[in-house]
């Protein structure tokens, strides 16, 4: 009986474990997680914070599921080291041996250099359920919260907090919000919408340089511009970095993230695979190497890794970013190369009312989109991007609501039969 060990129990880790079980009915699968919880939805934490989902509903699978599937989830088991040679990992006091190992350690928050924040009890990160519970326990109607970072995590934290707290200030170094998913124009209108619908105050192009404290509690923060914001809860959401420490120590090749074969997810060690936010991906759209820290990508990678580990034939088709998020009911869907720079790229934007649709093209192909309140059938755009469809084959105006009638009869029939993905 083969032994599989997976480090990390979030999107990639769970997908990997499930895929192994699909391919190999008789093997032992052990998932080691440093967290105290069974696999839960990390993106749900901001919804948990604002009370939109209950803790019970955050769990990705029911506890029975793991028993049925024979997937052993070991919680509160931070892995200390990987021994490549003897094929063992050490977690807590126990050592686990493996035939195949998958590293799905995800990312860690990046803590910016700010004076006087170390050891302060009211400075929080916002990345996992434990930190969210801590925030939720302290936030109340009198809280004045300051969020550093207006990326996906920072903005979701701010949205969640705005439903609870007295005031929420967001400080962002970049001149616009959500720089990873929005272009300048759309970022402006989204910012306006958020300001109108949630009481969030933005401080863009600015950063926190120093925290002022009373004993071990932060009382206010000082911005580079000189402004001083009252603060009794500081959320550090500047960004994340791949969690690669374990892999590095074990002597696995690491660049910005763990380096893997882009199809099989195998690392520099034959028996060790890696998937999810801890890896560096090759973007299939422009060939660039970067960390695509997004949920669907983690699942796709985890599935491919699991299949390859168990001798299956699923490979990663290619990584690209796809993200959907909402703020106060405003739905934003983005995919592909949002901020592509280069002569080969062109883009066009169509606005009507509160709908915003920006498509990015490379020659005759779609390589990215930003849809705000215009997400209808966005997946068809995604499939155009993924399949690198030649747009001259498209029958209708690409800016119309995408539908199967974009395609010729043969392609349409295939899709109606569900034969193509």
């Amino acid at each position, binding site marked *: 009986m083969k032994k599989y060990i997976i480090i990390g129990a979030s999107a990639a880790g769970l997908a990997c474990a499930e895929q192994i079980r699909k391919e190999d009915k008789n093997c032992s699968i052990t998932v080691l997680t440093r967290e105290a919880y069974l696999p839960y*939805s990390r993106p*749900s934490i901001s919804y948990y914070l604002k009370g939109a989902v209950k803790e019970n509903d955050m769990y990705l699978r029911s506890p029975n599921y793991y028993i049925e599937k024979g997937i052993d989830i070991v919680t509160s088991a931070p892995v200390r080291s990987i021994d490549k040679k003897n094929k063992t990992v050490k977690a807590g006091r126990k050592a686990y041996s493996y035939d195949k190992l998958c590293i799905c350690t995800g990312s860690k928050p990046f803590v910016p250099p700010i004076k006087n924040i170390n050891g302060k009890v009211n400075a929080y990160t916002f990345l996992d359920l434990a930190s969210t519970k801590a925030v939720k326990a302290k936030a109340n109607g009198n809280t004045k919260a300051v969020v550093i970072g207006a990326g996906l995590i920072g903005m979701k934290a701010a949205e969640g907090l705005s439903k609870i707290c007295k005031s929420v200030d967001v400080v962002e170094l970049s001149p616009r919000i959500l720089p990873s998913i929005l272009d300048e124009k759309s970022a402006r209108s989204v910012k306006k919408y958020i300001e109108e619908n949630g009481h969030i105050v933005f401080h863009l192009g600015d950063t926190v340089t120093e925290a002022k404290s009373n004993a071990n509690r932060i009382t206010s923060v000082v911005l580079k511009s000189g402004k001083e914001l009252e603060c009794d809860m500081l959320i550090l959401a500047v960004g994340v970095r791949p969690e690669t420490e374990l892999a590095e120590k074990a002597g696995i090749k690491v660049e910005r993230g763990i380096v893997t074969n882009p199809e099989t997810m195998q690392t520099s060690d034959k028996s060790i695979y890696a998937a999810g936010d801890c890896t560096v991906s090759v973007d299939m759209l422009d060939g660039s190497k970067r960390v695509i820290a997004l949920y669907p990508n983690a*699942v796709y990678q985890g*599935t491919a890794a699991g299949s390859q580990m168990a001798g299956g034939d699923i490979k990663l088709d290619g990584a690209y970013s796809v993200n*959907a998020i*909402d703020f106060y009911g405003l739905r934003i869907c983005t995919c592909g190369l949002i901020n592509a720079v280069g002569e080969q790229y062109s883009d066009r934007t169509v606005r009507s009312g509160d709908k915003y649709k920006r498509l990015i093209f490379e020659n005759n192909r779609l390589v990215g989109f930003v849809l705000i309140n215009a*997400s209808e059938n966005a*997946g068809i755009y*995604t499939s155009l991007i993924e399949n690198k469809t030649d747009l001259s084959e498209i029958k209708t105006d690409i800016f119309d609501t995408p539908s199967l009638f974009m395609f010729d009869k043969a392609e*349409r029939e295939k899709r109606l039969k569900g034969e193509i993905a």
Partner: protein
Amino acid sequence: MKKVYAKEELCLNCRLCEVYCKTAHSKTKDVLKANKYENPTPVSRITVYGDKMLSAAVNCRHCDNPKCVQACITGAMTKDEKTGIVSVNEKKCIGCMTCLSVCPFGCIKTGKFAVKCDLCQDEDEPACVKNCPNHALVYIDLGGAK
């Protein structure tokens, strides 16, 4: 598994499938109340695309390897191993629409949560198929894995 298939050469573009889908997924189950008075208005899980010359109704394909399930960030979207039906758990869904962003068929609709075809599990035949006046929708098993 049995799925709903559209025959575009027979589709009338009448969109009664949408009307009856809304009805089947309403509180009152009454075609008039569901489509006129209920608030919130039920969302149709099936949509007719095209024009009078050529149209077809599209609803969930209940794929073998559903992208929506893979991409779901909360575990709300699942594929039932026995029936093969892909469905949304509304308690878990946060309405982020990642599923919609990856569905290559355009089958997921936006409500408060993700809304999609459940093949009218409690009935013998989905409402859209039952009420299609020209049998342009059929509910059959074309084989393939669940």
